[in-house]
């Protein structure tokens, strides 16, 4: 079902793109008007702005030396209506876009060049229309990459659905979850799970929520309290649901305490201070820091270290990872954290998507190696053919 939807998506995109090719040729023929400048021979080009929604017209001109020091006004004519769209502009820029127009209407433009008392006027341009495009050609490269990635995903998810099993390597920090929860239980201390200061739309937060589900389930099995102080109210409500479901799955819905997943404040340091105080008071035996962390990471990790908790951290914020590496027992670095959620779920479709990501990585590595070889042969050994190939490769990317 999903595979079909994905294919459908690709088909629509392709058909839209081919239609765009036809559109754009028409645009080039109809919408370009060239106007001569009085006395100076300056050419003013007006045309529809490409790759937009049809509410903008681009005006271009080449300035010559005789107009140095002049200021420029541009006027738009529509029927009887003459509107100044730019005043006292520096003409050296050579380009101006008028984005206050309606699509499909004919407009004309003229410019005034002013210096002291001298005013030079251009002829009115030929009528020009703004037209919306159905495909943004500047984003063609992104489109190809998206197709490539989406294709890889579709393929591996298809394989996973057909029952192919995939391997995923061991991730050290995750195997320690059991140990951390177990030790906390032995000591009769609660577990604290911090999702950082991201929102529910931030991907590390989502990965953190998945890992939370697993940790909460373990906690429920061991009958240990799990506290989730939150920074964002949406994350809080989502976390409540995740924990509740985990407790239900573990067969302990009665042990679920809603108030243990609480809101602190939506202020970075208010949050850090609040969590800090809570750590000092509750002395959790294990602390998980999985999500989006910024400057508060050090305060949290240092306090956690000082109360002697086992700490398992993970974030994508590279500036905070060094502190986690230093103060925590295990750290999931960047993408490891996202793979972690898959590793925990062991769900075939998820595994398939990780393999798809790995395939893209291999493609990137190959592109880089080809680039390196071409660069070496082309620029290092000065072989013209390879130089051209190298420039070509850089350009197409």
């Amino acid at each position, binding site marked *: 079902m999903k595979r079909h939807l994905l294919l459908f998506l690709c088909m629509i995109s392709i058909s839209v793109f081919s239609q765009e090719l036809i559109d754009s040729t028409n645009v080039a023929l109809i919408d370009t008007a060239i106007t001569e400048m009085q006395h100076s021979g300056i050419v003013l080009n007006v045309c529809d702005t490409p790759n937009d929604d049809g*509410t*903008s017209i681009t005006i271009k001109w080449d300035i010559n030396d005789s107009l140095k020091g002049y200021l420029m006004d541009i006027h738009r004519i529509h029927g009887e209506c003459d509107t100044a769209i*730019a*005043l*006292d*502009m*520096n003409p*050296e*820029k050579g*380009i*101006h*876009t008028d*984005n*206050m127009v309606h699509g499909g209407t004919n407009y004309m433009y003229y410019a005034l060049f002013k210096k002291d008392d001298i005013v030079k006027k251009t002829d009115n341009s030929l009528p020009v229309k703004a037209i919306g495009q159905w495909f943004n050609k500047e984003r063609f490269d992104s489109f190809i990459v998206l197709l490539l990635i989406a294709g890889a995903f579709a393929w591996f998810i298809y394989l996973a659905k057909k029952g192919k099993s995939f391997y995923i390597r061991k991730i050290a920090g995750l195997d320690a979850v059991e140990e951390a929860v177990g030790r906390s239980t032995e000591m009769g201390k609660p577990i604290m799970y911090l999702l950082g200061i991201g929102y529910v739309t931030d991907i590390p937060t989502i990965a953190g929520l998945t890992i939370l589900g697993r940790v909460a389930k373990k906690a429920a099995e061991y009958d240990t309290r799990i506290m989730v102080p939150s920074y964002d109210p949406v994350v809080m409500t989502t976390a409540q649901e995740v924990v509740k479901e985990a407790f239900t799955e573990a067969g302990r819905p009665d042990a679920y305490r809603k108030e243990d997943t609480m809101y602190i404040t939506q202020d*970075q*340091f208010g949050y850090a201070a609040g969590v800090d105080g809570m750590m000092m008071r509750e002395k959790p035996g294990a602390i998980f820091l999985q999500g989006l962390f*910024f*400057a508060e990471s050090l305060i949290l990790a240092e306090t956690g270290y000082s109360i002697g908790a086992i700490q398992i951290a993970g974030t994508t914020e*590279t*500036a905070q990872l060094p502190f986690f590496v230093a103060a925590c027992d295990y750290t999931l670095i960047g993408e490891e954290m996202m793979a972690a959620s898959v590793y925990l779920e062991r769900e075939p479709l998820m595994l398939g998507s990780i393999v798809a990501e790995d395939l893209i990585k291999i493609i990137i590595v190959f592109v880089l190696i080809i680039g390196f070889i071409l660069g070496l042969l082309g620029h290092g050994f000065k072989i013209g053919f390879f130089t051209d190939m190298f420039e070509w490769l850089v350009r197409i990317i």
Partner: protein
Amino acid sequence: MNIIKKLANIDRRIIFIVIAIVVIIPLIFKPKFPIVVSEPVQKAYDAVNNLPEGANVMISIDYDAASMPELQPYLEALLSHCFMKDFHPILIVQWQLGAPLGTQALEKIAAEYNKEYGIDYINLGYRPGYVAQMVGIGREIRTYFNSDYKGDLIEKYPVMNNIHNYDDIDLLIGLEAGATGQVWVQYAGARFDQRIVLALTAVSAPDAYFFFQSGQIEGLVGGMKGAAEYEILVDKPDMAVAGMAAQSFAHMLIILFIVFGNIAYFVDKRKKNKAKGGIK
């Protein structure tokens, strides 16, 4: 051996006092240190310096009081630079908590150079929804900023006459304390080819080097040290330059801490190993 062990288990509060002293004393006596300008800061300076006459420079305040010591000195040096060259700074704010900081610096430096509000510069203030805004400015800045920070319509101010979207902004300078800078690169840079210079807190600066190398940003000013370099470049040494002495001593102290901590660690480890050997 005993001394090392004792020192290793020293009370945290002693460490705290030592670091406080090391920062306070140079702040009071203000010794002078030479400052060498690094390449990314030089590039940031050149990007501003080589702008055409009357250029519009959009400055985005994406930090708050918590990062003020790192970015405020740069903001002041940058504004001085813009006013010296008669560029038009257009101030916008993406972090609401930073709005008063931007306004303070802008009014202070504008008064120094006798610049007039609305003609030479403007302060558009804060609007919520930063990604939507960055996308929106690509089409028309008035969708989001139809009035300035006081609520006056921008049509009143000639400086905004010809400014509609990124095409009319010669350089965008983001002062960043978080991930907003990446979003500028991702949206204003990637989608609209806006030229960007970023000034970041030292925490975020290392993560912006690949943008600098790839040319997605043209210059990079990192932390108070970067601000000090910029102050030297515009020849207006101020708070950042004054802070460099305290910065130097504090770094030396922390290096010392790490080295000593590790010596204690290795001595301890060797002892333990010996003890183990003895039992065998």
